[in-house]
């Protein structure tokens, strides 16, 4: 007897063509071994599908926030601004500067088009 072992998951998921689905169903009617396999696969599938849904630890909207490495870069930039250095972002579109600046102790106002900032920055 040829066991359709590799088709059991697809059978369980309803991902087989109708002819293959019928063939596996007929086989399962007379094969206890494959029926046990199907039961085990089904149990594992239920476990994975039952894993608790995780909520992102940060808000998705409204602003797209930068990855942590960009936060580190932004922190360095803020420190540079605080001592009067010139900073020119390499990829200004990569993160929302207002959002980043708003969450640091230094508050910076940036007008559109400005590519460099000079002078000290005061805290809130």
């Amino acid at each position, binding site marked *: 007897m040829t066991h359709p072992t*590799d*088709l*059991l*998951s*697809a059978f369980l*998921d309803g*991902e087989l063509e109708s002819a293959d689905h019928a063939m596996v169903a007929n086989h399962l009617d007379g094969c206890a071994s494959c029926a046990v396999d199907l039961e*085990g*696969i089904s*149990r*594992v*599938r239920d*476990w*994975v*599908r039952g*894993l*608790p*849904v*995780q*909520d*992102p*630890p*940060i808000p*998705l*909207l*409204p602003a*797209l*926030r*930068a*990855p*942590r*490495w960009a936060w580190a870069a932004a922190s360095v930039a803020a420190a540079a601004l605080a001592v009067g250095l010139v900073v020119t972002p390499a990829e200004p579109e*990569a993160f929302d500067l207002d959002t980043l600046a708003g969450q640091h102790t230094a508050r910076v106002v940036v007008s559109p088009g400005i590519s460099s900032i000079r002078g000290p920055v005061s805290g809130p």
Partner: protein
Amino acid sequence: MNNAVPTWEEVARDHGRRIYNFAYRLTGNPDDASDLMQEVLLRVRRGLSGYTPGSFEGWLWRITRNAFLDEVRRKKRRPTVALPEDDRSALGSVPAPEETLAESRLPEHLQQALLALPFDFREAVVMCDVVGLTYEEIGEATDVPVGTVRSRIHRGRKMLRGMLE
């Protein structure tokens, strides 16, 4: 099928949590999952202008998968990320079967077992059972035939069963 091109805000609102959960189950690490989710949303925002209405799920999850692989390469020195090339060495971290009888700890043990799967199997199982993609959508996202998807999901589940029962 709705062929309208979604806005970035719609993608973030409707798919952000699924992207995060995909990343979380692949990495087992909330920090890495957060970074990946943000990277994916950045790429989606950049790519939406060039998106041609069609299989949005395939497009989105191909971006997600590529972003994940890029993140893994970037962070390959971090021990908390399960690397595709380190899959086999992670097998030793799976709990003993008798320990898995504790129902309350099943999610934790299942997560460890997922991380012990070879990457292709883990990815296919997570896309199917966590994200809820069809085999065809998984094939589009991972650029393999549906038959390969079918095999990966089945072998992945069998390996999970072997580790947990």
